[in-house]
């Protein structure tokens, strides 16, 4: 991923985090991590939990604490991905083919079958935007995008950020709505690469980059902060040498 692309995705995620008080970000998530750090830099009331680093480990109650913490309503935003994502916001982290006789195995559902239900603003992040990832229907629902009305569900998908565009998720319609396309993309190019149907916002425009002062903040202070957890990412993107991921 080149620097311009990374900065654009950071801009997308950063915007989606507006108003969040506590943001949890997983490891292997340098872009969500950078976006959350940027959000926090601009809003001193934002707290961020970055998983994946021993340094400054903020939890002391073992593996269950993240889930308990989310269930307590203390986490406003979190990130999930998916080997497959469908138009109802269902995500598949288990495998391809008819479960249990799957033909290709992914690592597994992790905590998605819980966190997707209880974290109010789950941002789906998946750079690869192709018909094999963005499918009409996932082969296995690790966690569903929506639930029956009687199911306790304070959380769920808020948006889907990909390498081509940003979708908002409409819970009532159980559908994504295209909000903006990245430079070089169009509604048609997004449609051609998406296996599911989606709505299109009336005012779809080009995804906006970071404002100049935010960009300066990102390349300066945030680059240093993200390097603590993601030194290679930070070096590649902000160390003067743009590099492919």
């Amino acid at each position: 991923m080149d620097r311009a692309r990374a900065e654009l995705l950071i801009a997308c995620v950063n915007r989606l985090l507006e108003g969040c008080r506590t943001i949890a970000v997983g490891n292997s998530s340098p872009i969500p991590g950078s976006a959350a750090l940027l959000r926090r830099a601009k809003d001193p009331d934002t707290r961020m939990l970055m998983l994946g680093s021993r340094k400054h480990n903020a939890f002391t109650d073992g593996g269950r604490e993240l889930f308990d913490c989310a269930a307590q309503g203390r986490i406003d935003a979190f990130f999930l991905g998916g080997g497959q994502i469908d138009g109802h916001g269902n995500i598949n982290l288990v495998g391809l083919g008819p479960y249990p006789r799957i033909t290709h195995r992914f690592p597994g559902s992790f905590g998605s079958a819980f966190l997707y239900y209880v974290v109010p603003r789950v941002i789906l992040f998946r750079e690869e935007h192709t018909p094999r990832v963005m499918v009409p229907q996932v082969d296995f629902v690790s966690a569903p995008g929506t639930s029956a009305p009687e199911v306790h569900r304070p959380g769920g998908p808020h948006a889907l950020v990909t390498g081509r565009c940003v979708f908002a998720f409409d819970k009532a319609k159980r559908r994504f709505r295209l909000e903006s396309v990245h430079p070089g993309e169009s509604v048609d190019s997004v449609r051609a690469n998406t296996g599911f149907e989606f709505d299109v916002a009336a005012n779809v425009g080009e995804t906006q980059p970071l404002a100049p002062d935010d960009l300066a903040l990102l390349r300066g202070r945030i680059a240093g902060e993200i390097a603590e957890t993601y030194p290679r990412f930070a070096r590649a993107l902000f160390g003067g040498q743009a590099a492919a991921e």
Partner: protein
Amino acid sequence: MDARIKSGHDSLLVLMGGRGGTSAYDLAMKPVSLDDLIAPIQHGTLLAIPPDYSGVSMAATRALIRRGVGGLRLVAVPTSGLQAELLIGAGLADELEAAAVLLGELGPAPRFAAAVTSGRLRMKDTTCPALHAALQATEKGVPFMPLRGLIGSDVQKNRPDWKIAENPFAPEGTRDPIVFLPAMQPDVALFHATKADRDGNVWIGRRRELVTAAHAAKQTIVTVEEIVDGSLLADEATAAGVLPSIYVSAVAEAKQGAWPLGLQDLYTVDDAEIARYAEAARTEAGFRDWLAQFMDGRRAAA
């Protein structure tokens, strides 16, 4: 299927992530005054307080009595002693849920006993593990927790808020009743600890009932002997005994803040003072006299 789709779960790895750690980018937390600390405690507040041996904020208790806002609903986690006794004796508590109240080895708490027998205090009798479990339910975000025991005791029979249901995993055709305890969420948890850092992380050592109470409570306010520099989470050897700042709303400094009760390894309970209290509080007048001296500092840590 190429490598990219195989590694398409990146943002899921977060969940139990890599080395298993979690970086906190915390809010700085400025210590507050005792009066500001207790501000969230208001008429009707469900206030969780720890047992005598676990770190009791007698400093905040004094501030509460001085302020005089009543109508408190106390929850002891799972027992209390001098703290509940004083709040009840001073007329600030209308209700108490506890497995027991006693003045350490000196036994019964006289103002508590007087308030119960006179009917002034709504007493919700419970048993230690039921209180722990009800807080764990809130900790886990579930509406209830099942618990063994209890059935047929008068503790259970006097708790219409507890439900007896059948264990759905019992073999077919057999009965297996079990109690479902409703989740308990304190409005505020209040305790005293040895130290906190400037991020709001609080050292609690092995007193993990404080962790459960803080996880369950809407707000947790803490007095500490001292505010230390550096992060209490920095050293793995001692980090296991820390309540992380994400659960801590406010911290105030209070030296000897548990006196006359003890605190961890720092100081032991002042048995002589507790004995003087127990003797004085046998009468309402004696209690008033002791309390006046406690409030104006004539009774204070040596």
